């Protein structure tokens, strides 16, 4: 893992000192709220419905055990004993007091964590494939380049007052995108060209929110030594061209849409030609330095009999292994996804005790590494298979052994009206009820791979547009109302879901989802055809008949 050098540590300490002084000045009245607000946002501090909310970055989703322990400490000492992991690989604390925030930030700095640029019109926390460095399907580990981008973008003087927020994600697996690359302002795929050189494909102008867009390829292959200059050129072009008259039209997706990808490309190339000479190779040297921090752990080779024995003997362990393990590039290893989606619980929440337990598992069995996925789960990326039964037993003690990864109850949900000041409806209870309902029906494993994503307003923090089933909570004349979209796809075959029709009231939405899923079970060719495959084959119309049976009856 990346370790801070003296410069990084001094930089962070100075930022925290400044913010402590700013908080002091706000409290003693020398700063107004209008003056203080942008300062607190720059440090990840929001004011939500019931309290302040502190958003802490988990760069490219990677944590050490010590860092996870520190997150647990914050939850316990300054919050209500839990934290919420988000779709942008952040953790959010929902109940801090203004006075305590500087102490929280200092505690985070002890383990190289911070909240810088987790909000505001800046380049945000860079996200990455949560299986980085572990999966067999990647060209290269995306985290070194994500770290390079973090260092380049943090406090970048040209990019502190962008037209709007700017989100970058990186994946090393072009054909197996787990990082929603196509829905980012800039998405990078690490690719190999015909000559076998490693470089980057750059996708621009994706985004969700009020105007969802799938990203477009800006350049197919960028050489490693050109990357930072190319990124800088792209953000720079948007910084000048992006609309500041209307915040709903300010994101780069709108700029690309209004000017066309050709014109953006032309401008970026011009700018690139201008600034490329100023990048004299320090970036390549730095990347090399960073790469050394991300070397693979020493994989042990030992028999995996303990695993196969447990797999054959224990049906509960088998069911968990089938759902929650993914292929590791080393055959004796597995990638373990720990579900934060126990049926009926809040998606993405973990208690301090659970965080500590996961940190301990990583320390004991996982080469000291944890990951946070945009799907709001926790990953142990490098686990020798012989340890899996012990890990399962330990997870069970903490109620972390739910076997549902990729299944219908593995739902992404934003905080919604339960916490968020911008929400138009709740999303958490809808997720809780759907998970509980399908658990009762015992249909989950039969249904198979199905992603439900729920947002509590049009901002789409819950990624509803790219859910196989998306749910958007709205306020219709003072009551909660939920719109369903179908056919969204968050992978490299990204697609925006299509709206099925009129929305549903709070107490009607779960039955409507049940009808949708029962429709799928009827419509699928066989149990090997997943929900999204069925949808792509038959389209929206047959599903509508299930979702709106009365309309169908009336028409008959």
């Amino acid at each position, binding site marked *: 893992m990346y370790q801070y050098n003296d410069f990084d540590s001094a930089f962070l300490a100075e930022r925290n000192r400044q913010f402590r002084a700013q908080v002091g000045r706000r409290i003693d009245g020398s700063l107004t709220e209008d003056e203080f607000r942008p300062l607190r946002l720059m440090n990840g501090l929001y*004011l939500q419905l019931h309290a302040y909310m502190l958003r802490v970055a988990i760069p490219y989703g990677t944590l050490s055990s010590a860092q996870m322990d520190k997150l647990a400490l914050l939850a316990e000492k300054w919050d209500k004993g839990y934290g919420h992991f988000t779709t942008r690989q952040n953790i959010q604390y929902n109940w801090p007091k203004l006075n305590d925030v500087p102490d929280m930030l200092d505690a985070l700095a002890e383990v190289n964590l911070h909240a810088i640029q987790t909000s505001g019109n800046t380049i945000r926390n860079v996200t990455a494939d949560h299986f980085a460095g572990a999966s067999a399907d990647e060209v290269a580990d995306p985290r070194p380049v994500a770290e390079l981008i973090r260092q380049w973008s943090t406090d970048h003087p040209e990019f502190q007052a962008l037209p709007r927020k700017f989100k970058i994600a990186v994946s090393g697996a072009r054909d197996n995108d787990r990082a929603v690359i196509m829905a980012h302002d800039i998405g990078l795929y690490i690719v190999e060209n015909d000559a076998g050189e490693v470089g980057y494909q750059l996708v621009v102008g994706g985004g969700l929110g009020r105007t969802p867009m799938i990203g477009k390829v800006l350049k197919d292959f960028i050489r490693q030594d050109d990357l930072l200059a190319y990124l800088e050129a792209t953000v720079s072009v948007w910084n000048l061209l992006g609309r500041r008259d209307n915040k709903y039209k300010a994101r780069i997706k709108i700029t690309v849409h209004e000017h066309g990808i050709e014109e953006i490309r032309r401008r970026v190339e011009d700018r690139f030609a201008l600034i490329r000479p100023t990048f004299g190779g320090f970036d390549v040297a730095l990347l090399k330095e960073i790469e050394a921090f991300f070397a693979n752990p020493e994989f042990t080779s030992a028999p995996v009999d303990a695993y196969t024995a447990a797999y054959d003997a224990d049906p509960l362990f088998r069911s968990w292994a089938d759902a929650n393990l993914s292929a590791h590039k080393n055959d004796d290893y597995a990638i373990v996804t720990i579900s934060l989606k126990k049926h009926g619980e809040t998606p993405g929440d973990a208690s301090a005790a659970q965080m500590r337990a996961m940190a301990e598992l990583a320390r004991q069995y996982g080469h000291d590494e944890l990951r946070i996925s945009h799907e709001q789960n926790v990953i142990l990326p490098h686990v020798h298979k012989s340890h899996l039964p012990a890990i399962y037993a330990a997870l069970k003690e903490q109620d972390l052994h739910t076997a549902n990864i990729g299944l219908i109850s593995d739902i992404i949900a934003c905080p919604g009206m339960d916490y968020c000041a911008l929400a138009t409806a709740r999303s958490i209870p809808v997720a809780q009820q759907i998970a509980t309902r399908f658990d009762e029906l015992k249909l989950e494993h039969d249904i198979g791979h199905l992603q439900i994503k729920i947002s509590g307003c049009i901002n789409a923090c819950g990624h509803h547009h790219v859910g196989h089933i998306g749910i958007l909570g709205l306020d219709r004349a003072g009551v909660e109302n939920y719109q369903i979209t179908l056919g969204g796809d968050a992978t490299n075959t990204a697609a925006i879901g299509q709206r099925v029709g009129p929305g549903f009231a709070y107490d009607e939405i779960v039955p409507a989802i049940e009808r949708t899923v029962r429709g799928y079970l009827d419509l699928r060719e066989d149990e090997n055809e997943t929900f999204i495959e069925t949808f792509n084959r038959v389209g929206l119309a047959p599903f509508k008949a299930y979702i709106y049976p009365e309309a169908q009856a009336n028409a008959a």
Partner: protein
Amino acid sequence: MARAFTPKVVTANHLLEGDVIYMTASGDWTRELRDAELLTDEADADLRLLEAQQQTAVTVGAYLADAKSGPDGRPEPTHFREEFRRTGPSNYFHGKQAEA
């Protein structure tokens, strides 16, 4: 045509705690919506809001929220957002519901 004025309460978040507060008839702050002053006159409401906004050492983001008079004559929310603000989240027994 001007819309008819509907009753309001002055509400904000507390600067230090961040929690929801309401203005009382005496111009103090309370954590309980039921103890807030229900403002039925528009000019009055605007004046009270200005007072609240000037108290920058206490309030953040003061605004007028719709409310109605409940059976006991005390203010009640008319919109579910204000219902959540006076209660707390629905996924945990946290916030105001746990403090009462």
